[in-house]
């Protein structure tokens, strides 16, 4: 959460955006500037309430004078910058980034925006060959850094592995993990300060993990569910949703969302109660709510289970 408070009067900076001269407040990122001018830029790791890690490289744009493309989510605008968001070079890069991702990660349940971007760039996930079968849980974490099992190249290596169901609050399906770092940030300094999870391993074997991959109940996890709230690809999913999806009963079109204030303590967190078939199936908080910034504690997030009984 690095922005937010400092909305004091900022100087305005002139830049050229896709051929048009525009002015934007000093200190804004290229991404913010583009979005406020109606230019759609795909993002994956970026979330407005977390520190940008700029690792997904989906939001790349051209900046005149830069040898490489530039991550718009984290690069601040500078006076006189000439930016192109619509060139062939940019769209080739975005397509390839999405294809590399989709060839290694299961992106079958993603947000509607991400789905639309994948369509826009005509993502072919089998471009690098048929996808490899899942490995055993924990196997990917066992390789010594700098070593790997070589395949014969005819199948595309993936991060697929079975879903981890080790508690009643949420499940972890790392087949869907794009390593956006959002959950680690939410668990750590950006929100929760619990530090139950971190990046482990490196390279293609890099993965999100607890220490020695212990199950969540043995870890430092406090079940605030904030990691689930920020996950863009449903690698982290509330157990209720997971169970309903298993029997094909998850149906967002049948869900209603009610806004309320969390009753548990005096902080006043905004809650969004998602109901389906008269049952609370999920509790979220709006990203732009200035108390929570989308983050809740275990009571607000999962206290409804008493109501559902």
């Amino acid at each position: 959460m690095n922005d937010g408070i400092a909305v004091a009067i900022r100087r305005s900076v002139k830049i050229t955006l896709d051929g048009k001269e525009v002015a934007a407040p000093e200190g804004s990122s290229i991404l913010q500037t583009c979005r406020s001018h109606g230019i759609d830029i795909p993002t994956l790791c970026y979330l407005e309430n977390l520190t940008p890690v700029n690792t997904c490289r989906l939001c790349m744009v051209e900046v005149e004078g830069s040898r490489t493309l530039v991550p718009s989510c984290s690069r601040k605008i500078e006076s006189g910058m000439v930016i192109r968001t619509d060139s062939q070079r940019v769209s080739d890069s975005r397509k390839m980034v999405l294809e590399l991702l989709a060839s290694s990660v299961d992106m079958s349940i993603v947000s509607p925006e991400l789905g639309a971007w994948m369509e826009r760039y005509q993502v072919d996930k089998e471009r690098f060959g048929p996808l490899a079968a899942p490995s055993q849980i924990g196997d990917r974490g066992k390789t010594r850094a700098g070593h790997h099992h070589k395949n014969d190249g005819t199948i595309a290596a993936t991060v697929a592995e079975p879903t981890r169901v080790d508690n009643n609050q949420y499940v972890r399906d790392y087949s869907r993990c794009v390593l956006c770092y959002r959950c680690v940030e939410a668990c750590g300094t950006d929100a929760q300060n619990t530090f139950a999870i971190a990046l482990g391993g490196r390279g293609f074997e890099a993965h999100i993990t607890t220490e020695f991959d212990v199950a969540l109940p043995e870890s430092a996890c406090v079940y605030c569910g904030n990691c689930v709230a920020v996950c863009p690809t449903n690698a982290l999913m509330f157990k209720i949703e997971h169970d309903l999806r298993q029997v094909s009963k998850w149906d967002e079109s049948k869900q209603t969302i009610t806004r309320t204030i969390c009753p548990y303590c005096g902080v006043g967190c905004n809650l969004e109660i998602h109901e389906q078939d008269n049952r609370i199936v999920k509790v979220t908080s709006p990203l732009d709510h200035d108390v929570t910034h989308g983050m809740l504690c275990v009571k607000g997030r999962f206290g409804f289970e008493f109501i559902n009984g």
Partner: protein
Amino acid sequence: MDLRTSGGPASAKEKEAVDSVISKLEKPSSVETNGKIAHVSHGIPFDNKGGQRDLLLPALHAIQERIGWISHGALDYLSLQLGVPPAETYGVASFYAMFSLEETPSTVIHACDDIACRAAKNADPAAFMNDKYGEPNSDLNGLMWIRSPCLGRCEEGSAALVQRAGEPHRRILLAPVDASSLADEMRKPSDQWTSTDSARVPQRGTDASALRLLKRVGVVDPLSIDSYRSHGGYEPLRRALDIGPENVIREIKDAKLMGRGGAAFPTAVKWESVARNSVRPHYFVCNADESEPGTFKDRVIMEQDPFSIVEGLTIAGFATGSEKGYIYIRGEYPLGEERISNAVSMAMKKGLLGRNIMGRGFDFDIEVRRGAGAYIAGEETALFNSIEGKRAEPRNKPPFPAQAGLFNKPTGVNNVETLINVLEILSIGGPDFAQIGTPDSTGTRLFCLSGSVNNPGLYEAPFGIKLGELLDMAGGITAGKALKTILLGGAAGSFVGPDQLDIRLSFEGVRAAGVTLGSGVIMVFDQDADMDQVILRIAQFFREESCGQCVPCRVGTQRLEELLTRIVNGTTMGSRNDELALLGKVSTVMRESSICGLGQTAANAVESAFKLGLAGG
């Protein structure tokens, strides 16, 4: 702050190992390692703001050395002592190849399995280990061997690093080795094991007067500061102290010194922006992580003329107003580390480091840090993270190190070779230095010659020398062989053909030829080289060394390896041209959209090999 741990208790030995590194720390009051919760009442923060997280790697090394692996209990104990969450500690430990997180035999042999050693005619280390011991990674009665990336001993053509845990713990680098010489060494009691102490500097015998950077190599006693001083050592520092920081930077600017670590950035610009930064303290880091396959120049300097690095860093610290210097040495260089550490403590004793250096009111300390098996830690911002006790993931730039580097403070960082050039500049003066080489590439350059030449070794020549002339200096191609290709600049560089021997080895000369000098690698391949295997190995290297942070590199290096495997095996998807088109697309996104130089250059050598028709039949 509560830290929750999930392992069993640490053993007495494990605790001792951790305490040996962080004993000076005030201990949190209610730490229990076997209970579930520990309250860290001093609230040692997780980052470096006053905490001691930067002791994480040294402490992991201590456990690894004494026990041979890092158990869950040991990891928890360390985490509690430093106030770092166990998940984070695990994330750090699992990033580095030299740390083992499962029980491992006490002796581990890292057999070099990289392109130079593989070409060794009768002693490809991974091959003879395989013949003698069978498959890697298995327990052979207290011994295990594993494949290793380049160990920086390419001039000898077959290298192995041996790590032995316990008392005494040992780490030695041997080259050249074969099955029997390795076995002979291992039969000795481990306290008698010694790293090979030799340097191939063929010009020493023929053309010693041409040597500026290597002038002391093989001449001075690398353990003796008096010997160093009697060969001109510490005169440059005296002159620096005489003329003051601004004038030192002026000399560097007049000399037009460019960094030798790969990126060829003007050194004076870097120093100036650190010096001018009003945020304090300033740090200066010497990058001695040398891990680019084919590179061994920094190791030779560290082993044979270590005081020159300490002096060069001291001058850099003086010019930039830095309080503290770090020398980050790759973990595979035990002898280099030993000699540098000795040099630092001798310099301290003689008042050439520490308080009031040479009685001139300048204070500067140097700390030596050891890498743990990660090529990416050589990228400057990844290196800062590594010193800070984090995963060696490169940071986003800007901000640049001179603005916010180590511990987020203004930081200068230079390669070993860059820093020893500073001594020469202060000895002969910037303007005279600028007369050496070409107008745009001044001074001399170290070249690491390996492969099929008669006299492999470390060479020094003025910028602008032709590639062919350098090969002649090295005695030409191995007798009876024909030159097939030369890898210029390292695995991140590119291949050139036998018709390109007229390339001038200067920054502008290689730029015109569309290649790079990189870290000064010149690896020669003759007609017998199996280029398919060479490029596949290069692709595997990047695949194994990618930090994994960004998509183009993490997945791109994996796809590149798969694609090359298909081409080499003749199992292409569609036609060969389809594969080459796909290769082009993958390498473009890697070059354009990766965070750091690793991903940006990982496909260079491979692509150049295809352009020259060297690979894939």
